[in-house]
């Protein structure tokens, strides 16, 4: 536990001190501000546009950070041979993978908190009243990105950082669509495509189940009980994927 915590703190320092992260966050904030302009050209829907565009920007930039940072975390340690220092000490591979993930979770929490609070403040200024659901939506983006970070770390134990990033983005897109694709293939009544979409639905994390953006802008009623259950599913998914990553990483030689 001690080692996991030490690695997590080190990972947090590594990622939070990376200048590229600051650049991405500044871009994200600029994109959120651009929502003000979009709102101004939409008739009477300024607040809604602001929330909608802002949450998309938070998700997109959060995804960039999640995928590209997670893909490099394990890979960089192997490439730059800092693993020699770690694994010549009594550090288990499980503690290493878990510590890396926990550290990245902390960084992602800081990044999303920054973007979320900025969006919350802008929406407050535009709407004239605070909107707590915006912050809840950002929390649910965080939950989605936890799954993507775990998946990307898993892929990075198998191949290159670039491949892991690409696959991480693919899983994010598939996770947004898998539920709808399954529903559509069921309508088609083709057993092969239905079985295929079922397999994808089971393997890929169902991210759309915790996506509350439509609810925040008033297009959907939010069923928080169900969202809570899907959040628990995603957290269990993270544990399984990290266990697989540790299993793969245990076989590695340096």
């Amino acid at each position, binding site marked *: 536990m*001690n080692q996991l915590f*030490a690695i997590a703190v*080190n990972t947090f320092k590594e990622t939070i001190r990376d200048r590229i992260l600051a650049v991405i966050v500044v871009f994200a904030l600029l994109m959120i501000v651009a929502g003000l302009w979009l709102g101004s050209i939409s008739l009477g829907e300024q607040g809604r546009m602001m929330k909608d565009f802002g949450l998309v920007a938070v998700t997109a930039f959060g995804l960039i950070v999640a995928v590209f940072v997670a893909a490099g975390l394990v890979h960089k340690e192997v490439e*730059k*041979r800092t693993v*020699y220092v770690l694994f*010549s*000490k*009594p550090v288990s591979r499980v503690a290493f993978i878990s510590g890396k993930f926990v550290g990245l979770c902390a960084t992602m929490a800081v990044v999303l908190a920054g973007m979320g609070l900025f969006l919350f403040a802008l929406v407050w200024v535009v709407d004239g009243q605070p909107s707590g659901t915006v912050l809840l939506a950002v929390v649910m983006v965080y939950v989605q990105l936890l799954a993507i970070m775990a998946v990307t770390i898993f892929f990075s134990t198998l191949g290159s950082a670039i491949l892991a990033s690409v696959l991480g983005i693919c899983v994010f897109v598939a996770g947004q669509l898998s539920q709808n694709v399954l529903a559509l293939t069921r309508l088609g009544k083709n057993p092969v495509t239905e079985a295929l979409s079922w397999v994808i639905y089971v393997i890929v994390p169902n991210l759309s189940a915790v996506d509350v953006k439509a609810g925040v802008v008033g297009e959907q009623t939010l069923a928080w009980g169900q969202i809570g259950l899907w959040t628990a599913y995603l957290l269990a998914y993270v544990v399984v994927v990290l266990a697989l990553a540790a299993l793969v990483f245990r076989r590695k*030689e340096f």
Partner: protein
Amino acid sequence: MTTAPALRIIGLRKTVHVGFRRRAVEILKGVDFQVAPGAVFGLLGPNGAGKTTTVKVALGLMRPTSGSVDLGVEGLAHVGYLPENPYFYDYLSGREFLGFCARLFTLDADVRQARVEGLLGDVGLEAAADTHLRKYSKGMLQRIGIAQALVNDPELVLLDEPMTGLDPVGRVEVKRIIESLHERGKTVLFNSHILSDVHELCSRIAIMREGRVVWQGTVPEALADSPTLEDFFMKVVTA
């Protein structure tokens, strides 16, 4: 009564598979040697002889194909290791890096802090303790590398090319550290191409060539028929 060796390597073989066709390359072809507790042991050999691989297998960074490694200490908690051409975390200061390494062992906070500060002094990096490692020179990185290898006060210290990249002052400092480890009863194994340092520091040496130990003994034994260790080394590796 005989004392158990600090490190015993028996019949160590390691084959790796390289390239698209997974061609098998045997790096270690049956390495045998042992290091007595408290000794300063030099593992010598030309590039590609298998010295670094032997050390990596001993530490568990690589798995042996066959053979065995017996660390005479209770696990890696009592071992220190300096890799060859070490690279550390750019974004940490020297003090933060040593603190991080110390946290990987079950040390109390006050012991940890005292150890970190003591080692920074021992390797002459107090003035640069709060400088980020990316601003360190090669010699400074080597010194912080030695400090991290000693952060757990290990019984067995494995140093892979500890003198590489050091200026004469740095070399003297590292030699002093190795001598002080010896005086404190620690076991030191180091790989080096600088034979004068080996001559000065080591009580016993093993020479590797093409994945095997081709000669081992004491430094006086090596010098029995050769004027210098360099001559003896050349004789052994070119035989």
